[in-house]
Structure formats: C-alpha cells, structure tokens
C-alpha cells in the first residue's frame, strides 16, 4: 500500500467507526461496511482500510484483499463528475467503444483515472440495464442514452 499518509477528516472517521458499530463490528459484514465507508469518503484509501480492519478485528491484508477483488470499490478518489461508460454487450454492439475512445481522447486520461484538475474521472461499467438506450453513459447519477462520439463534447460542456 502507499507510504504517503493522508490526513483523514476526524468527523468522517467518527462516522466510519459508528458505521462499523452499527454492523456490530462483525467481520462477516465487511462488504457492507466497505460500501458505507466508500459512501462516506468517496473512496477507500489505505488509511480507511486500516481503520476498518481495526474495528472489525481482521487483518488489513484481508480488507485489502476484498477491496481489490470487487470493482465497485476504488482506492483512487473519483473526479467531481465521475463518468461511467457502459461497456455491456448491448452498448458495445451499438458502438460504446468509440464513445469511450472519444472520452479518453478529450479528457486525455485512461479508464480508471482521474483528470489532473480532479474534475472528471473515467470508468467503465457493465450494464445499467437501460439497453434500449444503448450506448449509455452516466455522469454522476445522470443517465445519457444513445450517445454518439460526436455527442461527447456536448456532454462534457454541460459540466464546464
């Protein structure tokens, strides 16, 4: 894990400890606790994993093992406007790869990265189940349907 220590906000840490307590600090609730933790901090840096390990009385390695297993959990902070391009089969068949390329090109980042100014981050997701609207892109909670490579600039402009 990283050697650079980041400072966590004490209020958020208190919230995290509370969340652990609400699950009776049970090791079996690890995934539920991590969901909570990610909703508090936005991501799961090493420091947060250490606290979770301490609270649930399990090895940090185990927490790390679970965090890295599931793609929903991230150790990199997301951008202010996280962009997710659906790369499920329905979207792929209707051209999602070209849309994704266009986002990469315009933002100059790869999938899983956050732009230097912290504004946008880019990720892929597998099927939100709105296949009728393929290809689908989500920015935060907002769903955009039938996105074409040409439409990418327009979407980004909404958040400039």
């Amino acid at each position, binding site marked *: 894990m990283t050697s650079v220590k980041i400072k966590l906000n004490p209020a958020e840490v208190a919230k995290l400890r509370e969340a652990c307590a609400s699950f009776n600090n049970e090791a079996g609730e690890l995934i539920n606790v991590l969901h909570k933790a990610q909703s508090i901090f936005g991501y799961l840096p090493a420091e947060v994993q250490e606290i979770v390990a301490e609270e649930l009385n399990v090895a940090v390695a185990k927490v790390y093992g*679970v965090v890295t*297993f599931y793609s929903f959990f991230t150790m990199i902070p997301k951008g202010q406007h996280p962009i997710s391009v659906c790369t499920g089969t329905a979207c792929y068949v*209707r051209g999602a790869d070209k849309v994704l390329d266009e986002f990469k090109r315009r933002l100059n980042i790869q999938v899983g990265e956050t732009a230097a100014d912290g504004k946008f981050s880019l990720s892929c997701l597998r*099927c939100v189940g*709105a296949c009728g609207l393929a290809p689908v892109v989500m920015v935060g909670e907002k769903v955009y349907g039938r996105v074409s490579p040409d439409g990418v600039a327009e979407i980004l402009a909404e958040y400039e």
Partner: protein
Amino acid sequence: MHLLVCGGTGCKASASDALEDKLTKELEEKSLQDEVQVVKTGCFGFCEKGPIVKVLPDNTFYTQVKPEDAKTIIEEHVIKGRKVERLLYLDPETKMHVTDSKHMGFYKKQIRVALRNCGFINPESIEEAIARDGYAALAKVLTEMTPDQAIQEILDSGLRGRGGGGFPTGLKWKLTAKEKADQKYVVCNADEGDPGAFMDRSILEGDPHSVIEAMAINGYCTGATKGLIYIRAEYPLAITRLKIAIDQAREFGLLGNDILGLGFDFDLEMRYGAGAFVCGEETALIHSMEGERGEPTFKPPFPSVEGYLKKPTNVNNVETYANIPVIFLKGANWFNKIGTEKSKGTKVFALAGKINNVGLIEVPMGTTLREVIYEIGGGIKDGKKFKAVQTGGPSGGCLTEKHLDTPIDFDNLIAVGSMMGSGGMIVMDEDDCMVSMAKFYLEFTVEESCGKCAPCRIGNKRLHEQLELITKGIGSKADLEKLRDLCNVIKDTSLCGLGQTSPNPVLSTIDNFYDEYLAHVEDQKCPAGVCKDLMQYVISHDECVGCTACARVCPVGAIAGERKGPHTIDSAICIKCGACIEKCKFNAISIQ
C-alpha cells in the same frame, strides 16, 4: 380509468418521472384526479420506444411520450375520448398506427407468467400486489399443504432454474429440505452479471412482492426461517423497491414471526454485491455474503448441504422465484402444459443489440429464434442483414441463420453449442465482426476471472491475446486449431462455471464463421470492416477534386497532395481515425 406510466430504469432515464408529475398535475387542474389514476409501474418491456404510457381499460399504448405530451393526452384521450394518433405505436411494416397493445406484433406471441404483474401494478404498493393475488399462494401453501406436498407440486410443474443451469427447482428444494440443521437459509440470486441482460432487474423493479412471497414459500418447504437477497449494487432502483416491499410485507404480517397467524416464522435480509461477475456463481455468492472475496469453491459440498455460514442453503434465481406463486395458484398441471417436453413454462429474455424492438419479452419455451427476432423483435435495425445472435452472454455461443428455426429450450441450445444462460439475447448484423465479438467476450472473462485456478486465469488471457493477434491479421490456419485446443482444455479443467463456459463464444464463432477467421489470418481482411488494423483508407483519384479538406483535418498528417491535385493517404502513418472520410464532401475516400 388508469394511466400506467413505466417507471423502470430505462424509461426513468428518459424522463418518465417528469412525465408522471405532469400527468398528475394536469388531472388535478381539470379536477379529474378522482376519476383517473396515474400509476407508476414496472417495465412494460418495450424499452426501445420508452417512455411508455398505457391507458386502461382500453389498452391504448403510447410510445416515446414526453412531459409536454401530458396535456394533450389528458385533453384529447381522457376528456374527449379520442386517441392521440401521433403518440401511438407505428407499425414499421404496415406503416399504420396501432391502437392498442393487444394488436402489437411485439406482444402477440408473448405469454406473461414471471412478468405477470410487471407493468400492471405500482410496485411500491402491497395493496395492488395483493389485489392481483399476491401472497395468495403463500396462504394456500401454509394452510393446505405440508412442505413435502408443496415440493411435490414444484417437482410436478417441471420448473427448472432460470439462473442459467436449468437445474430442476423441486429437486433442489428437496435436497435442502432433507438436511438436518438448527438453521437453514434460502437465498435469492439477484446478481445478474451478464452484461446486456436485465430480466431480473425488471422483475424486482416491477413486482418485488412475488419474489418475497416465493422465498417465504421456499423457506416453509425447506425448513429455513431466514432468507437473504444478494443484489448487485448497480441496481439502486431495484434495491429501493425491494426494501419498501419487505417493510410492507412485515407490516402486513407476511414476513416475520407467526406469518398470517399460522405459526410459520420467516424473515428477509438484503446483501449487496460489489461488481464481480463471478459472484453470480452460487458458491462465490455465498462467500461474498460472508464478507469474503467472491471466489468459487469446489462442489460438492453443494450449498444444499453446506452453504451460507456452513448451513444448508437453497439458492435460486429471481425469475425462478417469480414463477413459483403462479404454479401454486394455477396448479402444476397448468404450468407443465406450457413449453417443451423437457423445458416447462416460459422464459424471459432481454432483447438487445441491432434489433428494432429492444426490450424485455417473455415467451413459452419452444418458441423459435426466428419468431423472437422477427415477429417480436421487429427484425434487424436499419434494414440490415441478420448475422448472428448470442444467447447465454459470455458463457454462451453465437448462433446463425441456420439455427433460426431451433425451438428455444435448455437442451436445444446446448445441442447447438450455446446455452440458455440467464436470458440475455444480443442480435448482431452484417456490420459486426465475429472475431471482435469473441474478443469482446474474452476481454470480459479475463477481467472477471477470479484468478483462483490456472486454466481460467492464464488460459483465457492467452485466448484473448491470440484473438487480438487475429484481429491484426497475424496468424495461420494452424493457429486456429491451436485456439480450438486451448478452448477445450480450459473448458475441461476450470474449477467453476465461469471458466468452464468462457471459451464458448470463441468455439461457436470458429465453428460458425470459420471463413471470417480465415479471411483475417490469410487475406488480412476483416469482411465486416471492423478491425482497424486491417483497414486501409484510400482516396480515389477519380473522385478527388483536391479541396484539401481531408489533409487539413488529418490529426497525424498522413495525407499529401497539392491544392486542386489528387491527394494520397500514407497508410504507414494513418491511424485510421476516420476523420477524413467524414470531412470529404465528394465521397472520394473509402475503406478497403
């Protein structure tokens, strides 16, 4: 009169919430709110043309309704009784507006068993579920049947698991029931990991009570007092509706202690997935619920013997559960008359890809692919030619023209090299490259393999690399044979269903589209024109007028030529971005 507005994920993304608000407001303005009710329902299935508004009792079916249209619907249809012509579904063949859903090709061949309530009730109201016989089956089972009798009914119905494996549901219940333990569990598998499938999501969003009811029945039959629903975190709307439904069921005494005063205890809890396809596999799912990495383990022991927290556990799929209440209400003998000899009942499919009517459909087992794609699906988009259909997602195979008349059931699909899977059905047309499709699925598998066993972890990676080379035109006929061998080794030696089925897309495309593979490796050509590395951008000197538009737009300076003189592309520099083609007003540039 009722106005049903679809509130599924697809239609919500196209502003069905705003539409619902608008309809309600318009009705209030005209003081009609007591006579006409606006009901937010689950998915109607016709997602392609959402948002949908359906008017009851006359079944008028309005498509692509915008919030601005609310006023017209109220003033014309509700008040004056005139259908709003321009919002009716336009039959692509007859070019006529279809007045109601009963006459739409999309619905004609469908029978709704698992989806019986989707699109008819407000999923957030237990009263509406009860009004359509919700929980009547639970009451019947608890008062009239012993657990053994109830299991026998399911056995007689012939119901097989809808999660992919097709294991007889009654038999599974029996195996869990006969175990002796102080605690047993029933689990609903709502992980739905197949990308491009949304059957289970739609059931949970449209009719959560039927799943809750079936789980309680399952608990009674197997002796489990606790149920768990494992649902993927990517389905926020389904999660919300389930939570509401569980709370309502508790309030009505249909969950909790002493259900219906009949001395049976059963309650439910939710567990969330975190984005791992392999967690749909039942042993992985169980480990994930225990807070571990979702890695599959060897069976036996089967979950029915040693599952969640090492206790006997019965895992069933969402759609399997949705079928259960109907079987008790209408009888096993009603159910087993639908379908084919070895596959009873119906199957829900999510139709997607290059098809006109993307959406959710439910057809009797034994319906042919042709009926599904052409009659229900409305044929291929933009009048293109059908090329293949993938069933079973990343575990299934590509089927072609010659399979179109195969009746769909568990065994037939396996016989032709694919599988039922959970019900995703992706249609491809002439513009899709089959090697690229196989590569796409392998990319998915490589990403989702849990890495526990070598054939799957390393073998699939090698498969993917090999396919990558083929899309670049590198390889030989002998390599294709090696590819086939590797596929068979992975299938035979992987630990779980993921690895055992992941080579299917490769095998089936090699079998059915061998010439297309050969064209890549022998002629360095991609017949569908998809593989970038095999494409050449060429300017026809007959057509080129030397306007220089292409040279100016090319990001890498690959185009040379004098003003008013013919231009040429240096294919060694060209990155095949396609910018020049779009810019050229004279159609002088083509891909070869």
